[in-house]
């Protein structure tokens, strides 16, 4: 509309002149914005879900038999193989320590089941102590039934996924490997989104007996009193023979260390994508300035000041970047599920829950970064355009 003409209109109409070129430039920015947001979302999400997994354990410190610390870490979070054992007697000393609020002893047994999944899989049996285990994990709630009542019964509680896999309901009975006796299912847990979903829970004594591990434990979970100094307490435990102390903070750092190298690679990719996008903007805008050499000269003969032309070109780049940024952010949201699957595929250990968590500050910061990149890419062409003289246009034939 002629009544509301302004410099902004000139800019955007110019972008419409070369639709294909404009589209490709915007696409370039879209892609780099997408990569950036997804990466930052991953940064948030990974740590966040790792924290959640770790808090879900209900205890801050775990004692295990001596072994590789990384193995111990995954053992706790996923229920791994290569289990080692320590004597039950250890519990008493630790439980009586004044810093300790509660302990819970566990015996884990992993069994390969050729019928599980397509290629077989590991079934994890966890012997737990009643009532300390449920007390430490109050968030474990039941879809059906309840916990067994004492430590030696032939009763079973199934995690949500384990129940689906075994196709059992409360009241059904099931067999354990290497035992002819039947065990009764007394409870099925609700889905928690943690490693607990896949477990088969049994009374501690039962597991010790069935799998010939009497008097032995794989783990002792320890929750400290609020007032206790975790570091000092850990120091005390190091004096115990043949056990290792794994604190959750340590587990977290070990795992974060493992993924940090992957992050560096992705960060470099994002950086490269950004540099490319910036040169894309610079190239597009510079080309359109050269194409409009005469036109810009004429605008100046009509009274446009250098700063008017500078602003006009900068608006063009800002428009490109804003559009690309908005599209990229939208893509990041739309495809966060797919990106998450890709990350799970490539990383050695991934916690449960949302790996990509896109927060408002992430969106705002990314958007500002993209806008800034665009403006930087636009400054040189805008500068060139601002200094075109009317005469250059008139004389150029």
């Amino acid at each position: 509309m002629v009544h509301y003409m302004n410099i902004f209109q000139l800019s955007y109409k110019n972008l419409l002149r070369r639709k294909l070129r404009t589209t490709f430039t915007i696409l370039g920015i879209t892609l780099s914005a997408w990569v950036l947001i997804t990466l930052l979302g991953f940064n948030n999400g990974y740590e966040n879900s790792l924290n959640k997994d770790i808090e879900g354990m209900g205890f801050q410190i775990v004692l295990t038999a001596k072994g590789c610390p990384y193995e111990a870490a995954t053992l706790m979070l996923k229920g791994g193989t290569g289990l080692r054992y320590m004597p039950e007697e250890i519990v008493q000393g630790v439980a009586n320590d004044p810093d300790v609020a509660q302990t819970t002893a566990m015996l884990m047994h992993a069994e390969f089941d050729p019928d599980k999944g397509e290629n077989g899989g590991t079934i994890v049996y966890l012997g737990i102590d009643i009532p300390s285990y449920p007390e430490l994990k109050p968030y474990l709630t039941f879809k059906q039934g309840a916990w067994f009542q004492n430590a030696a019964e032939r009763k079973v509680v199934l995690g949500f996924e384990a129940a689906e896999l075994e196709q059992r309901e409360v009241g059904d009975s099931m067999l354990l490997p290497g035992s002819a006796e039947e065990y009764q299912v007394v409870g099925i847990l609700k889905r928690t989104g943690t490693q607990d979903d896949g477990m088969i829970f049994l009374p501690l004594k039962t597991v010790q007996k069935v799998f010939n591990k009497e008097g032995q434990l794989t783990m002792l979970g320890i929750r400290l009193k609020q007032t206790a100094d975790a570091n000092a307490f850990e120091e005390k435990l190091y004096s115990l023979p043949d056990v290792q102390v794994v604190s959750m903070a340590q587990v977290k750092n070990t795992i974060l260390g493992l993924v940090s190298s992957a992050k560096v690679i992705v960060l470099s990719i994002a950086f490269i994508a950004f540099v490319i996008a910036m040169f894309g903007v610079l190239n597009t805008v510079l080309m359109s300035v050269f194409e409009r050499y005469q036109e810009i000269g004429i605008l100046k003969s009509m009274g446009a000041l250098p700063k008017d032309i500078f602003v006009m070109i900068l608006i063009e780049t800002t428009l490109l970047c804003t559009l690309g940024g908005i599209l990229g952010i939208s893509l990041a949201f739309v495809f966060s599920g797919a990106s998450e699957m890709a990350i799970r595929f490539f990383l050695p250990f991934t916690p449960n829950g949302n790996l990509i968590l896109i927060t408002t500050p992430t969106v705002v910061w990314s958007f500002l970064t993209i806008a800034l990149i665009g403006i930087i890419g636009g400054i040189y062409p805008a500068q060139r355009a601002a200094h075109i003289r009317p005469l250059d246009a008139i004389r150029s034939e």
Partner: protein
Amino acid sequence: MNIITAKNLTKIYARGVEKVFALNDASFVIKKGEILSITGASGSGKTTLVNILGCLDNPTSGVLTVAEQQVFGEQKELSEAALTLIRRQYFGYVFQKFFLIPTLTVQENIMLPSIFQKNLQTNLQNLQPTLEILGLTQRARHLPAELSGGEMQRVAIARALINKPQVLLADEPTGNLDSKRSDEIKNLLVTLNREQGITIILVTHNPDLAKIGSSAIELLDGKILKKSC
């Protein structure tokens, strides 16, 4: 009253080691309200002269005064912005090529100077009369590509006039037009001069068009060969 005074204007281009006097010691005055026609063979320096008069180009030496204000001369060179302000205040330009913005309609092209000069609202009141004078009322919403050459040049003239400049500079305004369209433009220029008192500086090869000048300058190799009133 003199609107423009030119004193010893000289423009030298270096072509390799050789010096080309595109304009050689030109002195004259232009009175307010006159039509000055500038003629001469190709390469005689017409464009060079008119660009300097319109403050689009600077002379190598000499003094140019526009409405009592020295634009080029002994004093320090004016900045690009200062020159722009002088151009805004006094001049409208028309060239052999029309230089319309292809993405804007006729009326938008005409209003274009106003968005830089921040007088859009005032100039909108001039839009209808200007369209009428130039016979473009029916074409207001068309794009340049939909116009004939004569119409395009009329749009360019309208654009030059929208700010009501005191001086209209036209460098071969009919150079790209056939004789019928040229006549239209000629009559238009005469009308503008008579009815609105606009000073016109007109460069042309066309002797018929040159006749409308109330005074005339003929150039030869950058020198003023003949001056007449």
